[in-house]
């Protein structure tokens, strides 16, 4: 426990010193804030481009706050996941192949502590980034489009965070197995496959963690039919990834030079 805490603090310090704790939140804020702002100023942008008649512009519907929130969130489910994958692809592989893991794991450090500390560190980064970004999106939506219901926004945000946590756990496992870029590509493929299979054949993949995103979007519409299976597979998926990473970490052997 003490060791996990120590390693977690090291993870945070590393993020501060490598400016990860700065640039990822900034990207997330931009990502979140762009959506309400572009939606609001769309008529002005189109007018400036000059090709569109004035009547048409006045007929452009002003999007509902709930719609804008859903659109903002969908940015996170695509570009957000991509950033998570790129920022975290070397999370374990980097230490294994550079040799720093050798100096750490030769001590009486349980593999699980090592993995949990990494996971917690990444989740903290994600939490900070996503909270700021989503908060920004919410703020601008409320100012420009109208009020958003508190409960809906919070639930949708929490659901997205669960999806991110799942993505992060998967990435952690793949980063334990493969070198950096392979881990990013494979985790993106798996996440993509989960989303695509669910949207193509929802009835078959009702257990799919990708369904969380549908829950989140449906929250704003008001009607959600939660299924326990989705949550069970998501949470179990996280735990299995963590356990497998910890188990594989030592089994694979630790190279001590690059």
């Amino acid at each position, binding site marked *: 426990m003490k060791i996990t805490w120590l390693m977690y603090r090291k993870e945070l310090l590393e993020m501060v010193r490598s400016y990860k704790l700065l640039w990822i939140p900034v990207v997330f804020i931009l990502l979140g804030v762009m959506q309400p702002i572009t939606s609001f100023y769309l008529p002005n942008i189109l007018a400036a481009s000059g090709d569109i008649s004035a009547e048409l512009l006045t007929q452009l519907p002003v999007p509902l706050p709930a719609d804008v929130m859903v659109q903002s969130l969908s940015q996170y489910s695509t570009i957000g996941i991509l950033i998570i994958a790129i920022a975290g692809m070397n999370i374990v592989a980097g230490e294994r192949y550079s040799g*720093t893991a050798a100096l750490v794991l030769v001590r009486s450090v349980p593999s699980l502590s090592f993995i949990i500390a990494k996971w917690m560190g990444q989740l903290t980064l994600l939490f900070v980034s996503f909270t700021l970004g989503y908060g920004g999106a919410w703020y601008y939506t409320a100012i420009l489009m109208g009020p958003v219901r508190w409960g809906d926004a919070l639930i949708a945000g929490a659901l997205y965070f669960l999806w991110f946590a799942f993505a992060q756990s998967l990435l952690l496992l793949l980063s334990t197995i493969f070198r950096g870029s392979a881990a990013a590509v494979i985790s993106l493929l798996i996440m993509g496959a989960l989303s695509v299979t669910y949207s193509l054949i929802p009835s078959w993949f009702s257990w799919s963690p990708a369904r969380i995103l549908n829950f989140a979007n449906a929250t704003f519409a008001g009607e959600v039919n939660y299924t326990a299976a989705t949550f069970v597979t998501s949470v179990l998926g996280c735990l299995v990834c963590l356990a497998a990473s910890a188990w594989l970490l030592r089994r694979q052997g630790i190279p001590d030079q690059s």
Partner: protein
Amino acid sequence: MVMLSVTELTKKFGMRTPVNGISFQLEMGSCTALLGPNGAGKTTTLRMLAGLIDPTSGNIAIAGSDDKDTQQQTSIGYLPQHPTFYGWMTGKEFVVYVAGLSGMSGKKAANEADIALERVGLKDAAKRRISGYSGGMKQRLGLAQAIVHHPQLLLLDEPVSALDPLGRREVMDLLSQLRQQTTILFSTHVLHDAEEVCDRMMMLRDGEIVESGSLRELAEKYRQPLLTVQVEAGTGQESNTWLHSLEDRAFIIESSITGNTAVLTVNDVIEARHTILQEAASQRIPLLRFEAGTTSLEDMFMKVVKS
């Protein structure tokens, strides 16, 4: 008491077998050098002992226990051949961090880190980022992190290979101090380093132990009388013919002749000296140099490694 006991340790990587069934024991408080040419399996052996890779077969018992969990409790200090650190940390931060990982509380870790850094001569650079360290400083930092938690077993992989002569001297002195307190196993391909601090040597070639024992035993075993005979150059055929004729005498074990110098390993030095000097005198050989000595450990090393 036996600190480390290794039986039939083998590691295979696909077709290659860098370590092939080695067995040895280390007494508590001993200092042993793992000697061998490049690619002999030294690093693989040390990494298995450190628990960083699993052996293909064989058994490692540390402090009498071959259970992995208990072994983790026994503190091991390990210095890889090319230690890498978190470049964004300062030297002090890194040593404090790993001391914490070895179970020291915050304050104790900081104190011990200061002591360790001072011992390796990094006190002045302790507050600088590791990314700005030179190769030698990284090697010293590696040593500091290996000793900060007072390990019972210290495994060092080529601790002085990357250092300049001054740093080498300092590290060797440090090792001499450390051997009072802990069991040391270090690998090197330089015999001289091994001779200096260690009391035992193990020679590895192609993953097998080809020779091992205490320094004195080995020196005894391989010490053989050595005669060097040099004749004057350009004095005609006779002296060279005579020099070559020496190779076939009964007392010769091994000989090598380069130009007008013959280096002869003999079994009976008295007989050999008598014969050679007498012949040289009677045949009027223009003798330039005649020297009697013994083979060194260096010769042994070359011989064991090449054979």
